[in-house]
């Protein structure tokens, strides 16, 4: 069980949206993490490398900064089945870049633009995720 946190989740989601809007305002790009992270690797086709690096460094540093500044503890439960997590990572990385977007690029930014492709992508990964969890938790 995890606690239902409607207000914290709504507020945190709004911060994610604010970041996406400001990224569009600043340099006209979609805040899609798979796109930003995937293009940190060569080959490079544009000159936005430093921008992408900055965003990812900020993303990684966020919880460390929050702990250092406020002393909060961040609870998490991550599976310690390392082969499972490696396989999951491979599928997540491949699948999201293969369709040009993940929960942020298609889910947040794409739905906000009412993009048909993003609506199809978001519905598909939601259904695939729900089916996977159902099989693991209830069918096996």
């Amino acid at each position: 069980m995890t606690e239902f946190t409607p207000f914290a989740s709504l507020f945190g989601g709004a911060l994610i949206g604010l970041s996406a809007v400001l990224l569009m305002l600043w340099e006209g790009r979609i805040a899609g993490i798979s796109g930003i992270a995937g293009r940190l690797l060569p080959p490079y086709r544009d000159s936005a490398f430093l921008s992408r690096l900055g965003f990812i460094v900020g993303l990684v540093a966020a919880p460390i900064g929050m702990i250092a500044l406020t002393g909060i503890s961040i609870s998490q439960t991550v599976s310690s089945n390392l082969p499972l997590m490696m396989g999951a990572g491979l599928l997540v990385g491949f699948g999201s870049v293969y369709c040009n977007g993940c929960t942020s690029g298609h889910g947040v930014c794409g739905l906000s633009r009412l993009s048909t492709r993003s609506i199809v992508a978001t519905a598909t990964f939601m259904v695939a995720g729900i089916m996977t969890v159902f099989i693991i938790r209830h069918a096996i």
Partner: protein
Amino acid sequence: MSFIVNLALGLLFGAGLVISGMSDPAKVLNFLDPAGTWDPSLAFVMGGAVIVTFLGYRLVLRRAGPISGDTFHVPTRKDIDGRILAGPAIFGIGWGLGGFCPGPALTALGLAAPGTLAFVPAMIVGMWIARALTERPVAPQTA
């Protein structure tokens, strides 16, 4: 300058992920389990993010262009091809197995759980394979 602005926006995005609870895979997996221990929080994260982005994009995209850079890079494709179905299906299976999508996995990296340290390098390899397969000499700029 762009590095600093992007660093700040990455911090904001990461703080949003932590506050919303999405950096905890257990919350994500419970959202994906409506038949079991369902936690609807993720729907509120998406809702909050989409409301702000929907309204914010409406204001920002009225401008002639972004502050830094020549033009808005907004995807224009509308076709539904095999990749827009296969990619999310593969991604969704991995998401259901590990409880991480790319943003939360990177944000959780600093908390250094062994599962995260196994997940992220494999995710980067997966991204690299997908780019190697899909990027022909000139790649379209998309999300």
